[in-house]
């Protein structure tokens, strides 16, 4: 089961052709930061280079943090690793079973009840009926939603939505875990409760790729950091080293979030 778990990325570039420039998804993902990254492809379409010539290899046991300003390409890289964006340039090779926690609302339909959302999530994974019941049990216990489980998610408080999403997302045991920073959001009380569950999942994963703004998490969980800037690798190395370069001062002085991070909860960022 282990041993062969591995990620190879070589010369990966991801281009977004600007087909319908007004579209929501593009605004969300690239336009905000793309000013210097517009280009034209051979067919004279305007494209945005979300990722440029990324190469790295991860083997079992490695825990990689992706840092960089908003829109540096962190989520796009996670999506490429997850096989959602199939790149036109470069190779991506992933060995081992993989789970991507990219969107807190993955598979969550706001108009369905919590229980129905749990069922759907199980079905995404092709669970059998008996496994579905256990999933429901597990999630209900952790999320602590009580009677709200039978009400539409639409009327949940945002905290309840995060709890449900978190409980669903952590009910997995992948060999490779891709995690976006939304995952580390939530109120302090919840984070405390969530920590154990999440750490268990992270520990069991053989490879972790985490996109985050929080230096403490990076130092605590990760063995390697890649600093992405404008879709390119700016630095790649040990956490302390890269973090200090990124922050521009020794780590000890950092109290909380990274300089540009500020917001701990960005929701489903592109």
């Amino acid at each position, binding site marked *: 089961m282990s041993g062969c778990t591995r990620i190879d990325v070589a010369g990966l570039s991801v281009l977004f052709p600007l087909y319908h420039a007004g579209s929501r*998804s593009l605004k969300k993902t690239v336009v905000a930061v793309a000013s210097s990254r517009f280009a034209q492809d051979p067919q004279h379409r305007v494209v945005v280079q979300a990722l440029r010539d990324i190469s790295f290899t991860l083997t079992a046991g490695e825990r990689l943090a992706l840092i960089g300003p908003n829109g540096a390409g962190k989520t796009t890289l996670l999506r490429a690793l997850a096989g959602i964006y*199939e790149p036109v340039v470069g190779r991506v090779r992933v060995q081992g079973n*993989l789970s991507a926690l990219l*969107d807190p609302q993955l598979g969550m339909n706001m*108009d369905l009840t919590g229980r129905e959302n749990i069922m759907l999530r199980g079905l*995404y994974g092709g669970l059998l009926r008996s496994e579905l019941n256990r999933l429901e049990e597990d999630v209900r216990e952790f999320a602590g939603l009580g009677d709200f489980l039978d009400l539409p998610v639409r009327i949940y408080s945002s905290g309840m939505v995060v709890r449900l999403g978190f409980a669903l997302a952590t009910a997995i045991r992948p060999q490779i875990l891709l995690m976006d920073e939304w995952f580390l959001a939530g109120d302090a009380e919840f984070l405390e409760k969530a920590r154990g569950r999440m750490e268990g999942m992270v520990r069991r994963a053989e490879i972790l790729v985490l996109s985050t703004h929080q230096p403490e998490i990076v130092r605590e969980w990760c063995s390697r950091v890649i600093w992405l800037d404008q879709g390119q690798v700016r630095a790649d190395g040990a956490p302390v080293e890269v973090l200090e370069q990124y922050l521009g001062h020794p780590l000890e002085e950092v109290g909380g979030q990274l300089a540009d991070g500020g917001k701990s909860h960005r929701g489903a960022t592109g």
Partner: protein
Amino acid sequence: MMLGRVKTNAVAAVRGIGRPATGSAAFMSDRLSPSIGNIALEFRPGLTATERARFAVQDVAGGLRLWRLAWTLGWLDIRLRYRGSLLGPFWLTLSTAIMVSSLGVLYATLMHMDVHRYLPFIALSQVLWGFISGVVGDGCVCFTQAEGIIRSVRMPLFVQVLRVLVRNLLMLGHNAVVIVVVFALFSVRPGWQALWALPGVAAWALAAAAICLPLGAVCARFRDVPQIVGSVMQIAFFLTPIIWLPDQLGPHEHLLLLNPFFDLLEIVREPLLGTAAGSHIWMAAVAITLVLCGFSCALFARVRGRVAFWL
């Protein structure tokens, strides 16, 4: 035009490497991340057409394996639409019933026809056409509507197509009540002949899947296409014998064969009315289905990897 503009010199190679050797007491199986679970993922530049075709086939096969998910999604779509209403999905039945009875009486008078002949005909035609236009309309948005899922997890795109099929089949089922009631009221008994509708429905399912895949992809890329399709379907409604009978065309009836909607409609409608669809109609319907499937496979193989970028 479409094909020329899509750049696909690199496509994913997705290979299964067998079941995971979990064996642990972990109940949360690795299958929770289905589309990726236990497989190696490989993207590399320069795949051949055959390889691309294989990945398209894998997508369809993977979608079929997730049929329970597709069923639930389609079923929830319907439930959601009518959640909180008294009649639920039977609003479909009721509104179809009202439309069919008012249209039936009005047009029978306008066209000087016997209500006993016309009303069962229009009830059946209207319900069947509702399925056809529903599939085409939903097919246009099958990927754009599922944007959230497609962009957050790797999952066979074909699941979304199955979801559209399930949703429309369930609606057809609810509307079919109207046909049964009308047939009972006017004592129309198609007899054993009606069984011929079954292969017709099978051909429909195939054709529906084959039309949704390319429509969904093209509509994701070119956002004007759903509008175009909408007006084409509007015209098709009037050009196809739905509110009028084929034999009203008189000597020109054979020209109807050129209307693909007519051929497909007849292979299900005729048996249910107790007559057999002619062999030339069957041949035309089968040919249309096969051409659709071929076109669908060819286009899907080329654009499958790009759909996520278009959403």
